[in-house]
């Protein structure tokens, strides 16, 4: 099996995540899709670390996890705030600002 298969997987997962953001309306699910994209990127990093025979990629992946965790905290806080105001977590409901 080619190592590149990991990259294909990564690309597929990234695409799924990207399209998930577009098609899902629950803000939390949308956010989860973004997490999926970050994971896909991480997979690419880890794979490339193997290809490149250095650990930089893994370090980046590690950073990504930390950063993602922080992002999750902030993001979920924002989502909760919205939920408390509107009683809804649908991103479509948050569409007053337009045009």
């Amino acid at each position, binding site marked *: 099996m080619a190592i590149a298969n990991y990259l294909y997987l990564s690309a597929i997962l990234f695409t799924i995540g990207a*399209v998930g953001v577009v098609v899902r309306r629950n803000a939390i699910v949308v956010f989860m899709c973004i997490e999926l994209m970050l994971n896909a990127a991480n997979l690419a990093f880890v794979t490339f670390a193997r290809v490149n025979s250095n650990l930089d990629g893994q370090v980046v992946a*590690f950073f990504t996890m930390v950063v993602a965790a922080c992002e999750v905290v902030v993001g979920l806080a924002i989502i909760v705030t919205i939920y408390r105001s509107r009683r809804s977590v649908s991103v479509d409901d948050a569409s007053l600002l337009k045009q």
Partner: protein
Amino acid sequence: MINLALDIGKTATPESFLFYFLAPLSVLAAVGMLLVKKAVHSALLLAWVMISLAIFYIAQDALFLGIVQIVVYTGAVMMLFLFILMLVGVDSSDSLEENIKGLRLVAILSAVGFGGLLISLISRATFGRQIYGLAAANSGGNANGLAEQLFTKYVFAFEVVSALLITAALGAMVLAHSQKSKSQFTQRDLSISRFRKGSLKDAAGLPGSGVYALHNAVDVPALLPTGKAAPTSISAVLEARGDMIESSNFQLREEEEDK
């Protein structure tokens, strides 16, 4: 410069078994994430993808990351997601009907195109270098290797990440922490304030609940069963001081009730 095709980087057979077993499953799970109605199910499917990825990490000589992926990501982050899902209502289910016209079609088409092109591009690409794997880099242990990088090469980024963590904490607090707008009054405070207020009539406080009296003060006469006021119920001292209120004011007036 070596210019080798991608397929030079071959993996060992067990790893390919693992891959061919897990990769389709994780893709399925990821797709499922988009298709299932309930957010909780999505979260579980995502957890599954993450665990699969963790296994892949481990398979690719990233033992430490694999563990962290499970512990931090799947364990902590996903739990946070679930927690918030619980908070906003676990049964809240997303209607899968699209209400922005044409969006879904375009999205799917572009996703297919996007993924297809990416895969096509990757298939055309070459790594351009000999792949030696991570055996050398991990010779001192994967965690050690990472640690060394983290604390030397990337130490500044590592330090700055702390700012991120603080921001996250601070942000969560700003949005969630409710400062009590009033300080709690103690009984003593209430009592003092009652007596400081104007006339003494407030000093006694209001009647307890369930008492059918309009007033509960020492200067107000009690009512007799007939509804008449009983002047004698008031302390003579008050009467002498002139602090007594005219008791007839408090009689129940039948004629009014008849109306």
